[in-house]
């Protein structure tokens, strides 16, 4: 009796499970298939034979190693700078009352919506050879050549990336600061703690997951940053995305481009894995 009653329900198709299909199909078509093509192109030669020679040659090249080192250095420096800048701004906006604090926070937020090259363009107007700063210095001190050159070096890239990516740190930190129990800050101050001790021992531990989340996102984005590096065109500053562009578009060496792209993807996924592990551990 009970078997007969259960049978019709047991044979019913669970149509709800089909909802997993559209995202899987989209993921396969838009991401996995192109990625497979890139991976295939990286290790198969023109005769469609498995051949690692070109891959090893690319990975052992000076250009690749320099690009890898540049990418790591710029990404780490820009992330550290973004964390320092974002943290300072977030502390001021959240804890030091001044008129228009909310407006300033919103204004900084708009950087997220702007294209990355815009900051670079603005930097060119400000710090470029013919920019405002060099123009003023040249005129003031009667110089023949513009004295400020940092924009056309790795420092220019780092500064531009800091400007663009600091809001990615600022936003989660502001959210975390808004959740910090004001009672803890007040009790700490009454117990004798001054501002720096309170920031260090009360506020930052509470905001650590947010700082790690924002910093990790910043690191991911700076590792893959292309527009800023290309736009600044700093001499000798070639990062992995720029090297992929050079190999594919300028040298038409698609296999080398695909090999470097796979390394770039692995680097990004590795960083993402570290971020998730840290976030899980810290409860972000």
């Amino acid at each position, binding site marked *: 009796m009970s078997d007969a009653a259960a049978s019709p329900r047991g044979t019913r198709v669970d149509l709800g499970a089909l909802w997993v299909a559209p995202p899987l199909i989209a993921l396969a078509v838009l991401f996995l298939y192109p990625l497979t093509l890139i991976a295939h192109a990286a290790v198969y030669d023109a005769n469609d034979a498995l051949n690692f020679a070109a891959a090893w040659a690319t990975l052992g090249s000076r250009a690749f190693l320099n690009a890898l080192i540049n990418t790591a250095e710029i990404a780490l420096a820009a992330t550290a700078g973004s964390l320092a800048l974002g943290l300072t701004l977030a502390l001021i906006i959240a804890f030091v009352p001044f008129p228009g604090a909310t407006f300033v926070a919103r204004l900084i937020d708009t950087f997220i919506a702007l294209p990355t090259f815009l900051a670079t363009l603005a930097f060119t107007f400000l710090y470029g050879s013919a920019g405002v700063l060099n123009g003023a210095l040249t005129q003031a001190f009667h110089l023949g050549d513009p004295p400020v050159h940092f924009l056309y070096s790795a420092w220019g890239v780092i500064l531009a990336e800091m400007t663009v990516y600091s809001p990615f740190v600022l936003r989660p930190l502001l959210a975390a600061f808004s959740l910090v*129990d004001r009672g803890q800050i007040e*009790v*700490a101050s009454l*117990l*004798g*703690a001054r501002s720096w001790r309170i*920031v260090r021992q009360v506020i930052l531990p509470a905001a650590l997951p947010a700082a790690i989340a924002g910093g990790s996102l910043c690191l991911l984005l700076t590792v893959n940053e292309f527009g800023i590096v290309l736009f600044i065109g700093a001499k000798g500053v070639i990062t992995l995305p720029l090297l992929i562009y050079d190999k594919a578009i300028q040298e038409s060496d698609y296999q080398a481009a695909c090999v470097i792209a796979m390394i770039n993807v692995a680097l990004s996924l590795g960083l993402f894995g570290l971020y998730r592990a840290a976030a899980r551990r810290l409860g972000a």
Partner: protein
Amino acid sequence: MTLAAFVDEAAIASGAAELRGAASTVAFDRVSVAYRGAVVLKPLTLEVAAGEILAMIGPSGSGKTTALRAVAGFVRPASGRIRIGGVDVTDQPPYARGLAMVVQNYALFPHMRVFDNVAFGLHARGAPKSLIEERVAEALKVVGMTQYVRRYPRELSGGQQQRIAIARAHAVRPKVLLLDEPLSALDAQIRRSMVEEIARLHAELPGLTILYVTHDQSEALTLADRIAILKDGALSAVGRTGDLYRRPPNRFSAEFLGRANLVPVVVESDADASGLVAVRAGGERLIVSGADERAGASRLLCVRPQNLTLAPDDGHTNRLAGTLREIHWQGELTHLVAEVGGALMRVVATKLPTTPTRGERLDMFFSPDDASLIAEEADV
């Protein structure tokens, strides 16, 4: 609270003298506080003696927490001065005032173990390591939490967390301990035991001055040497706990502290030499305490629910007749509400010879000493 509030460089040195601790007075000298032009604390003048527990009570928005926060340095008075131990601290940042505070939600630092929470203030005040260890051990012993020294706050119950918060405050030997609704987040049973623990703590540290803000009158009555009642940002009444309870100076303090019965009466004759006076409530003639009263004055007769009995005896010589409107049995107590000349009177009885029914006549008796007279117009 903002960082800007404690970045003032006018800090006093936190040296050995502060760590030694000293009982201190607190004085509000015409202190008022306003937020964006709206006055939330009207000019308040009040002194707390060294070693005293002063409870500030009042309904929400009465200004009691604002007054406490002004002492802490979290809000700046719009006018007036605050003195602690005779020193004007109005312009000092919170960290320089030598105080400690326990708040409703404990405000323990969640990422620190119990030891580090209790040691926080000592580190902040630059205490040497040996003193820190000694003080933390002693503070945890006082609150009976020695065995939890390695725990994180999340591993403790609400009551245990509040004990740690008290130990953290005690460890720095504050001049004054500020308690801001410290037991409000606890359930009734733990609250009762914590009230007893705070009383015991103060008995062990008789020099400690405590400013205790609460909306719970039973906490105030149990702990406080004196009570200040605030209403609408102003001081409504202040006095020794027993006096304020027995002889409330106005309607608000009578009703807020213990829900007294208030019946309109007219004074029949001037007070006699023993301080007794005859008053008339409807058709009843009553004899009550009332020095300085004059014949013909309109007053409110104030008598507590537990001072009314339903049977006359040698002491309870005054009688008020009413009609029983409500009766609520609450285990060890029975609450009765009777209507007397249009006013409702509450009676709390421990045992009743017979259970009266709604609508029947109820005679209530009280002693002249258990009643007082309040000027009708004195609302605050």
